[in-house]
C-alpha cells in the first residue's frame, strides 16, 4: 500500500509512483461477489444442499490454505480471497448430492497440491478448482455423476436423480432430449434459467452472464478468451454436432448447456493460468473450444470443458513464449540485416 505523502515532504522511492486501487484482494473479492447470482440460483433450484456443499468447499479451502502457511511459519494468505474463490468454484462444479468428504478431498487437492506446493498464488500451472474436480471425477466416477433433478423454491431435499442435458444428448440423441423438455423453446428456457440437472453453479446461464457482465464493466476480464472459446464451441457444434450431416447442428444447446459459460468466463480467464498476451488468449480460447467439442462429440465423457481448460493451461507458457508482442519502437529485422 502506498502511503499518502504530505505536500511538504520529499519522498524518494522507486517506480511505479502512481498506483491504481486494484489489488489482489479487491479483484478476488469482486469475482467472488460476481458469482453470487449463480450461487443464489443454485440454492433456489437445488435447495439447502447446494449451500451446504458450496459452503463446505469454501470453508475447507480457506482453512487448508491457512494451515499450510501456519505449518511453514509464513504470513498467511488465506484472507486474500483467492482460496475463497477456489473453494467457491470447486463447489459450483460439484453435483448437488455429494457426501461430505468429497468437498474436503477436493479442496485438499486443489489448494495444497495444485496451488501451494507449486508456490502459492501466481505460481500454479493449473487452475486449482478444476484440478480438484478432475481428481474427484476420476476417483469417484459414480458419486460425481449423480445429478439431482432441480425443483424450485429453495426446498429440494430428496430430489430424483436424472441425466444432464449433455448426458442425454450423448446417450440418447437430440430427439430424446426434445421429448424430455417438450419443445426447443422450453429447452432453451430451462438452460437459461438453470432449471436443468447439472453441477451446482453451472446450470443457470443468465445468473452467470450477470456476473460476467460485472467483470467486463470492471475490466477485470477481456473478451479475448471467453468469446473465442464460446465462438469455437458454437461453430464446431453447428458444423459437426448435427444428426443429418455437416452444418446441421444446434450451436445454442452446446453453448448454454454444461459448464461452458462458467468455464469460459470464470475459469479460462484465470490470470495465473492463461496467456498474458491478447493474441495468445485468443489461441487459448480457440484451443479450449476445440478440445471441449472434441470430448463432447467424440470422447467418453459427456462434458469436456474441464479437461479442455486444464489441457490448454499446460500450453499457456508455450503460447506466451511463441507470441511476443512487438516492442515499442522496434523495427522488424530484415533478412539482409540478420545476415
Amino acid at each position, binding site marked *: 500500500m502506498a502511503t499518502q505523502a504530505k505536500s511538504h515532504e520529499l519522498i524518494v522511492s522507486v517506480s511505479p509512483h502512481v498506483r491504481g486501487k486494484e489489488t489482489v484482494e479487491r479483484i478476488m473479492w469482486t469475482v467472488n461477489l460476481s458469482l453470487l447470482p449463480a450461487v443464489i440460483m443454485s440454492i433456489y433450484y437445488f435447495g439447502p444442499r447446494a449451500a451446504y456443499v458450496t459452503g463446505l468447499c469454501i470453508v475447507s479451502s480457506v482453512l487448508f490454505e491457512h494451515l499450510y502457511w501456519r505449518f511453514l511459519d509464513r504470513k498467511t494468505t488465506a484472507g486474500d480471497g483467492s482460496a475463497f474463490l477456489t473453494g467457491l468454484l470447486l463447489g459450483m462444479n460439484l453435483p448437488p448430492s455429494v457426501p461430505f468428504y468429497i468437498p474436503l478431498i477436493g479442496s485438499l487437492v486443489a489448494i495444497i497440491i495444485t496451488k501451494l*506446493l507449486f508456490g502459492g498464488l501466481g505460481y500454479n500451472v493449473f487452475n486449482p478448482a478444476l484440478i480438484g474436480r478432475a*481428481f474427484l471425477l*476420476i*476417483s*469417484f466416477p459414480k458419486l460425481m455423476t449423480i445429478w439431482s433433478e432441480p425443483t424450485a423454491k429453495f426446498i429440494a431435499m430428496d430430489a430424483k436423480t436424472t441425466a444432464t442435458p449433455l448426458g442425454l444428448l450423448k446417450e440418447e440423441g437430440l430427439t430424446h432430449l426434445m421429448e424430455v423438455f417438450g419443445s426447443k423453446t422450453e429447452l432453451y428456457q430451462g438452460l437459461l434459467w438453470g432449471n436443468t440437472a447439472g453441477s451446482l453453479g453451472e446450470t443457470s446461464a443468465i445468473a452467470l452472464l450477470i456476473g460476467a457482465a460485472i467483470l467486463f464493466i470492471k475490466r477485470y476480464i477481456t473478451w479475448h478468451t471467453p468469446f473465442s472459446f464460446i465462438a469455437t464451441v458454437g461453430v464446431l457444434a453447428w458444423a459437426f454436432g448435427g444428426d443429418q450431416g455437416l452444418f446441421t447442428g444446434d450451436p445454442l444447446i452446446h453453448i448454454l448447456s454444461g459448464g461452458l459459460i462458467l468455464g469460459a468466463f470464470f475459469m479460462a480467464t484465470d490470470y495465473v493460468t492463461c496467456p498474458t498476451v491478447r493474441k495468445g488468449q485468443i489461441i487459448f480460447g480457440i484451443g479450449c473450444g476445440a478440445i471441449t467439442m472434441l470430448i463432447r462429440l467424440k470422447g467418453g465423457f459427456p462434458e469436456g470443458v474441464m479437461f479442455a481448460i486444464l489441457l490448454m493451461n499446460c500450453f499457456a507458457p508455450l503460447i506466451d513464449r511463441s507470441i511476443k508482442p512487438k516492442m515499442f519502437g522496434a523495427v522488424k529485422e530484415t533478412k539482409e540485416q540478420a545476415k
Partner: protein
Amino acid sequence: MSLQPKSNWELIKNGMFGENTIFRMAISLCPSIAVTNGMKNGMALGIAVVFVQTMVNATISLMRNFIHPKIRIPIFMLVIAGYVTIIDLLMATYARPIYKEIGLYIQIIVAFASIFARAEVFASKNKVWSSICDGFGMGVGFLLAMLVISFFRELLGKGELFGYSIIAGNPLLIMILPAGGFLAVGLLMGFFNWVDMKYFGGKGASGV
C-alpha cells in the same frame, strides 16, 4: 564416492537411505509408477532387483581386472542380462500368478539405470565384499521405496494391503491409476527430502 573407504555397514546404509534409488537419485522411476499399484507386485519386483543388483555387483567386481575399459559397457549388459534371465525363469516357474502380472517388468530390469550405474561407478572399482554390500544396500533401498509407494497407493486406491481388505468405503480410484503413481512418488519424495533437511541436516535432493 567419497575418498576414504567406507565400512560395509555404511555402504548398505548409504544404498538404503543416503543414495536411495528412487527418492534421492530419482532413477529407475518407471517401475516405481508401473508396478506399485499393489504391495504384492511391488515386493516381488523389489526382491528381484535385490537379487540382480547384488549378483551383478559381485560378478563385475570379480571380473574388474579382466574387463578392457573400451568394451566394459557390453560386458556389463551381458552380465546383467544373464542374471535377469535367471530371475525371470525362476519367477516364471515358481511364482506363476505374480509373474503373469509383472513379467514384463522383470525383463525390463535389464535396462534399470540403478543397476548399470552401480556396476560402473562402484563394482568396477572396488573389492568384492564391499561391492556385494553396496549392491545389496541399493537393492534393499529400491525394495523399501517400492514398499512405501505401493503401501500408500494400494491402501488409498483399493482400501487393501497385500490383497486383504483394510478399510471399507469408497477408495480414491485415482491412486491406482498412473496419475496416482506420479502423485505418490512426488509427494513421498518431497516428504523424505523434508525429513532429511529437518532432522538429519541434509540439503535435500539438490545437495546429494
